[in-house]
């Protein structure tokens, strides 16, 4: 993210829609713009109050061509809108020559563009993270829109975190009860160190899933009190998960068979499961592993001897050149169990109780002593 350099000094900001778009119902515009402000209010202690007359902090206008600020709009396409940073008044102008739409793949989605512009009104410049709302390019209608973690970090750098609750679930006390299974069952992981999936949560905790149980991993191996039962901690989530990852929006996605689930922390984030073919078009069912590449925000799925690259910001999200052979990843075997990009920048691949460390600089499995693959039980789970 990038900060322009100015911000509002008050937490309650007023706005007024001084000129409505020609092609939309005024009441619906009111709702969409309120939702667009709420995107930012959800992450901070900012509140936004709509006024219909008088002076306000942020004035919103839908205009065509030259409209008095020396930066004329250019008709359909091209520039969609612009907004002023707090130090210049915070106003937001939208090109009324665009076909503004609500909840539709046709036209230009009003809510998404407004949320972007209000980011400028609050002091955010354009981000160079492609998946961020504050990236300068309109990426088409996203029915399940979410702020990127980059946007959240940006707005919280300006206005701080929300005091009452943290939507990323950090610090949110979960209501689900975690229950341990009888001790000694963790020996199962030492007897057979193969896993179904390994992932890191938004809070930075690494979990290993196997069958119906899961383990929390620490620098020293398995944390005390594990394994626990998956379905008792992540309510609604089955065992025997195929793959999992936490995306940049802080949400964790689990895949099994033809379905996937989305959680914030250990709380399900909506109506799940959903079909992989709906939410991850182009990705096959029954994947072996998945990993988010931190450098570019793309998601890599692995199955058998092939891999797919999923870019949520692109249409289609999977290019026609995929799947590609997994042999492109030098030294990584087919039929993986799990994959994880760790905080040290390395990507780790797991298969049948062993793991491989992949170096993205050489784009191959590291040469090291002892060599890879190494036993995951000893190195990851602290087994003797």
């Amino acid at each position: 993210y990038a900060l322009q350099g100015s911000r509002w000094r008050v937490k309650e900001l007023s706005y007024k829609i001084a000129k409505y778009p020609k092609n939309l119902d005024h009441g619906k515009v009111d709702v969409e713009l309120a939702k667009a402000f709420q995107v930012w209010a959800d992450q901070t202690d900012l509140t936004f109050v709509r006024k219909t007359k008088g002076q306000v902090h942020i004035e919103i206008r839908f205009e065509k061509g030259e409209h008095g600020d020396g930066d004329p709009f250019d008709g359909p396409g091209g520039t969609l809108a612009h907004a002023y940073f707090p130090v210049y008044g915070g106003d937001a102008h939208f090109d009324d020559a665009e076909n503004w739409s609500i909840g539709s793949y046709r036209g230009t989605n009003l809510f998404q563009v407004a949320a972007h512009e209000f980011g400028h009104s609050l002091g955010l410049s354009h981000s160079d993270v492609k998946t961020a709302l504050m990236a300068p390019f309109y990426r088409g209608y996203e029915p399940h829109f979410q702020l990127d973690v980059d946007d959240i970090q940006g707005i919280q750098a300006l206005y701080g975190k929300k005091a009452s609750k943290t939507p990323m679930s950090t610090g949110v006390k979960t209501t689900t009860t975690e229950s341990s299974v009888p001790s000694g069952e963790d020996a199962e992981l030492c007897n057979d160190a193969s896993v179904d999936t390994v992932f890191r949560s938004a809070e930075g905790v690494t979990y290993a899933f196997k069958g119906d149980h899961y383990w929390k991993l620490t620098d020293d191996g398995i944390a005390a009190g594990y394994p626990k039962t998956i379905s008792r901690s992540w309510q609604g989530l089955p065992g025997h998960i195929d793959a999992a990852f936490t995306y940049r929006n802080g949400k964790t996605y689990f895949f099994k068979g033809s379905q996937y689930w989305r959680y914030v922390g250990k709380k399900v984030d909506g109506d799940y499961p959903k079909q992989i073919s709906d939410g991850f078009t182009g990705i096959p069912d029954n994947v072996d592993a998945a990993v988010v590449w931190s450098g570019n925000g793309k998601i890599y799925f692995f199955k058998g001897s092939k891999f797919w690259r999923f870019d949520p910001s692109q249409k289609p999200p999977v290019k026609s050149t995929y799947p590609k052979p997994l042999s492109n990843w030098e030294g990584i075997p087919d039929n993986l169990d799990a994959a994880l990009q760790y905080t040290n920048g390395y990507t780790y691949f797991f298969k049948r109780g062993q793991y491989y460390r992949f170096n993205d600089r050489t784009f191959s499995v590291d040469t090291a002593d002892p060599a890879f693959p190494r036993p995951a039980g000893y190195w990851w789970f602290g087994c003797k």
Partner: protein
Amino acid sequence: APVQSDTQAMIYLSQFGYLNPKVRNPSSGTIIAADTMKKAIIEFQAFAGLNITGELDRETAETMSLPRCGVRDKVGYASDSRSKR
């Protein structure tokens, strides 16, 4: 349609802060050095997450044609922020 000419690309790059804003008006007769144009294209490609070629290749031209925000900078013309975090 993608940006189709160097002139269109020059206008775009100046409009969004990669080239001197005088280039916005092609009739101003501004001539820029090839390496200045290449540097501006490289900066744009880096910001937009494209392959860095320094050339107005198809991917770059298509990205320049995407609908986008035209947020105004303090000096009065739109620009992408290219400052480091």
